[in-house]
C-alpha cells in the first residue's frame, strides 16, 4: 500500500522564501490593516486577487504529483470551503482537504455542502476535523463550548453527518445536535463519504477519532513520541474494531545538498526580530494539548539556529519562521526522503508536506523528493537505475 502525500495551500499570504518574513504574494503584508488592497503584487490594483495565486499553487501541486492540499483555517486566513468551491472547476485531480470545527456548522448544512462539493469535483473533498484550540480564541469564533465538551460535540456532529449521508431517514437526539427523519436528497446521497483526517492529542480527542477518523493527523513530534502516539491511536481504534491510519503534517526545507538546506534555515533564523524570539520564550496560551507538547521542546539557550537541531535533519524553530508547528525536516533531497521513510516505518500512512514558497517548492518536492520515498515498499526506487 503506497502512501498518500498532500501539499498545503498558504491561506494567509506567502513570503518569497524561508529567509523572508513578509508576504510578497497576497495582501498580508504589514500595514495593510483595514484597507482594501486587493491586488497580488504588494497590494497594488493589478486586477488579480489572492485566489488567482492559490489557483496557481493548486495546479502546481496536482501537476507535480500531490494528492491535493490542506487548506488551513485560522482567524486571519481565507476560508477553505470558499477556496475549494472557487477552485473546483479549474483543477483536475487536486483533493481539497478542508479543516473546520464541527461547532461552526449545522451538520445537515455541512453534509449538503460536502455532497455538493463532491458532485462539483468528482469526489475530491475531504475533511480535516479540528476540535482543539480553546480559551478566548474559541469565543472569537463565536463558540462558547468547553474543551472536553467540544470532543463530545465533534462525535455527535460526525454521527449525524454519517447518519444522514446515504439518504436516511435518520433521527438523532444528542446533547448538541438533533435531527428528525433527516437524510441527504437524491442525487446528493449517492456521493462518496469524505475521507476524514482528525486532529487532536488529548484523550477526549482520541476517543472521538477512534469512532470517526480514517486518518489520525499529527504535527511532527520527536520520532520516539510519534511512534508511541501512533501505536496508542492504533491500539485504541483496533480495540473498537476500526482500523485507523496515521498521518503527519510537516514543513520541510529540501535542497540539492544538506549544506544548502541549513544555509536557508540559518538565513531565516538571522532575520527573526529579537522581540519575536523573546515572545517565543514567554509563550503560553490556549488549552490545546498538542500545542503545549510542542512548547516543551524549546531549547534552554538560544544563540544560533543550531540550538534548535533536535536530531539529524530535525529542526524545532519552524514556528519562528512562519507560525504554526515547531518541528520540521531540513536536508538534502535524500535526507528528507530518508526521514520520511523512517516516519513510515514508525507507522505513518500519509503526509501533508509544505515548504515556502508553496508554488515553486511544490514542483521541487514533487520532482526531487517524492520519487526517492520508498514508503512501505522497502525496495530501492527503480529511478536509481538511471
Amino acid at each position, binding site marked *: 500500500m503506497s502512501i498518500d502525500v498532500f501539499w498545503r495551500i498558504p491561506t494567509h*499570504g506567502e513570503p518569497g522564501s524561508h529567509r523572508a518574513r513578509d508576504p510578497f504574494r*497576497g*495582501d*498580508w503584508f504589514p500595514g*495593510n*490593516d*483595514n*484597507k*482594501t*488592497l*486587493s491586488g497580488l503584487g504588494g497590494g497594488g490594483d493589478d486586477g488579480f*486577487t*489572492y*485566489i488567482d495565486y492559490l489557483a496557481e499553487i493548486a495546479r502546481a501541486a496536482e501537476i507535480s504529483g500531490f494528492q491535493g492540499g490542506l487548506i488551513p483555517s485560522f*482567524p*486571519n486566513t*481565507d*476560508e477553505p*470551503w*470558499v*477556496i*475549494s*468551491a*472557487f*477552485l*473546483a*472547476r*479549474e483543477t483536475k485531480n487536486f483533493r481539497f482537504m478542508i479543516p473546520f470545527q464541527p*461547532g*461552526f*456548522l*449545522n*451538520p*445537515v*448544512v*455541512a453534509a*449538503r*455542502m460536502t455532497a*455538493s462539493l463532491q*458532485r*462539483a469535483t*468528482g469526489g475530491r473533498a475531504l475533511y480535516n476535523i479540528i476540535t482543539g484550540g480553546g480559551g*478566548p480564541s474559541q*469565543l*472569537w*469564533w*463565536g*463558540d*462558547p463550548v468547553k474543551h472536553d465538551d467540544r470532543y463530545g460535540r465533534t462525535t455527535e456532529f460526525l454521527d*449525524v453527518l454519517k447518519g444522514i449521508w446515504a439518504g436516511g431517514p435518520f433521527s438523532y437526539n444528542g446533547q448538541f*445536535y*438533533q*435531527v*428528525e*427523519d*433527516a*437524510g441527504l*436528497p437524491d*442525487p*446528493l446521497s449517492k456521493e462518496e463519504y469524505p475521507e476524514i483526517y482528525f486532529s487532536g492529542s488529548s484523550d477526549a480527542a482520541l476517543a472521538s477519532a477512534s469512532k470517526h477518523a480514517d486518518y489520525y493527523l499529527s504535527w511532527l513530534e520527536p520520532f520516539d513520541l510519534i511512534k508511541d502516539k501512533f501505536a496508542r491511536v492504533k491500539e485504541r481504534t483496533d480495540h473498537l474494531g476500526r482500523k485507523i491510519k496515521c498521518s503527519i503534517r510537516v514543513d520541510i526545507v529540501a535542497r540539492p545538498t544538506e549544506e544548502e538546506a541549513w544555509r536557508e534555515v540559518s538565513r531565516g533564523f538571522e532575520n527573526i526580530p529579537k522581540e519575536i524570539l523573546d515572545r517565543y520564550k514567554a509563550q503560553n496560551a490556549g488549552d490545546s494539548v498538542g500545542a503545549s507538547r510542542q512548547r516543551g521542546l524549546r531549547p534552554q539557550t538560544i544563540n544560533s539556529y543550531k540550538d534548535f537541531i533536535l536530531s539529524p535533519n530535525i529542526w524545532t524553530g519552524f514556528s519562528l519562521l512562519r507560525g504554526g508547528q515547531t518541528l520540521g525536516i531540513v536536508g538534502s533531497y535524500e535526507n528528507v526522503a530518508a526521514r520520511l521513510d523512517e516516519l513510515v516505518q514508525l507507522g505513518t500512512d500519509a503526509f501533508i508536506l509544505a515548504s515556502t514558497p508553496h508554488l515553486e517548492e511544490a514542483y521541487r518536492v514533487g520532482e526531487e523528493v517524492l520519487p526517492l520515498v520508498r514508503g512501505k515498499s522497502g525496495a530501492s526506487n527503480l529511478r536509481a537505475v538511471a
Partner: protein
Amino acid sequence: MANQFYWQLPTSGDARYGNATRQRRGEASDPNYPVFGNGVTDPRRNAFSYFDYIHQVTKAADLSGFNGIFIPDNPDGEEPWIVAGYVARSTQRLKLLTQFDASRGSAVYAAKNAVSFQRYTGGRFAWHITEGSQDERIRKQLGDFVPKQDILARIDEFITVAKGVLTTFPFNFVGRFFEVQDGGFQGPLSDRQVPSIYLGGNSTAQLELSAKHADVHVLDAVEHDAIAQQIAAYRQIAQGRAVDFALRIDVLARETREEALEDAKRFLNQTEAAIPADDSPLLWPGFSEQHTGAKASLIGSYDEVAAALAAYAHLGVTQFVLAAVPHFEEAYRVGTHVLPLVRQLTNPAQKQAA
C-alpha cells in the same frame, strides 16, 4: 440607479419538461438505463456533472445581460454557498445572491466565509436570508429545532453578529443564539464589505426586521395593486429607513401571446396541473412554483411581459429575480428579448440615446 435583473439558477434539477423527473441535465445517466438506448454511442461517460450545467446557466445570464444570479436554497438541491463559489471564478460582473437560513451555524463563521467571497469577487457576494421552511417537520429534518416564534429573532442576531464582526474590532455580543468575544477581522480580512442583505415577508415583524437590517426587501409575485400596498406598508413601518424592493417572479415570454399560452398549457399538462379556465390574465399564480419557488409567473408576449415588469418598476420595484424553465435557454431568451424592452420602458433617456 438602473434596475437590476437577477436570473435564478436551478439548484435542484432542470429539464425541458414540466415533469422534471424526466431528465436531469448533466447528471451521469444510470448505466442500467442508458439515455441513448442501444442506438447511439454515448461518449459522455462521467465527464460531466450537474455543476457543468449550472455553470452554463450562469454564463448564459452573464452573457445575456443580467446583473446577477440568484442561487435558491432548496433542501432537495445543491448547497447554495458551494454553487456560488463554484461559478464565481467564471464571472466578472454578476452579483452572487445566495439564499440560506440562519440555522446554518455560527454567524461568525458565515461572516468569515463571506470575507473570502468578497475578497475574491470584488464585493459581489449578497445574502438572501430566509426563515427556512414554514413546516416544522422539514426544519427538524434539517437539524433546526428552534421554534417558529424565535426564527426572526435568530435572523436578527445572525445579521447583528455578522455585520458586527465584519465592520468592528473588537466586537462583543451575547445573545440568545450567538455569542462572540473580541471578534472581528484584521489585516486584509478587515476590508468591511458586508454582503448586501436581502430579506422578505409581509408581516409587521418581517417588515420591521427588514427596516432594521435589509438593503433589499424581497416581494413575492402578486398583482400590481398588491405590490403597491406592500411597498406602502413597508414605508409606513420603516419610518424613513429606505430599502430597495426586489420582486421574485417567473416569466414565460414568447414572440406572440398565442405561443406563450400554448407553451404554458403544454407545461401545465406535463406537470398534471389544472389549466385555468380564463387564460386572459398576464399573471398566473403557482405556475412554475414547484420548479422555481416563485409564487407566480407572467405569461405573454415579449411586449406584454416587459410592460408588466416595467409597471412593477414604476411602483418602486428596482430589482427583479426572474426564472423560467428550462433555465439555460430561457436566460438567453429573456436576456435578449425582454430585458432590453424593460430597460427602455423604465429609462426613456437610455432609449433616446440609443
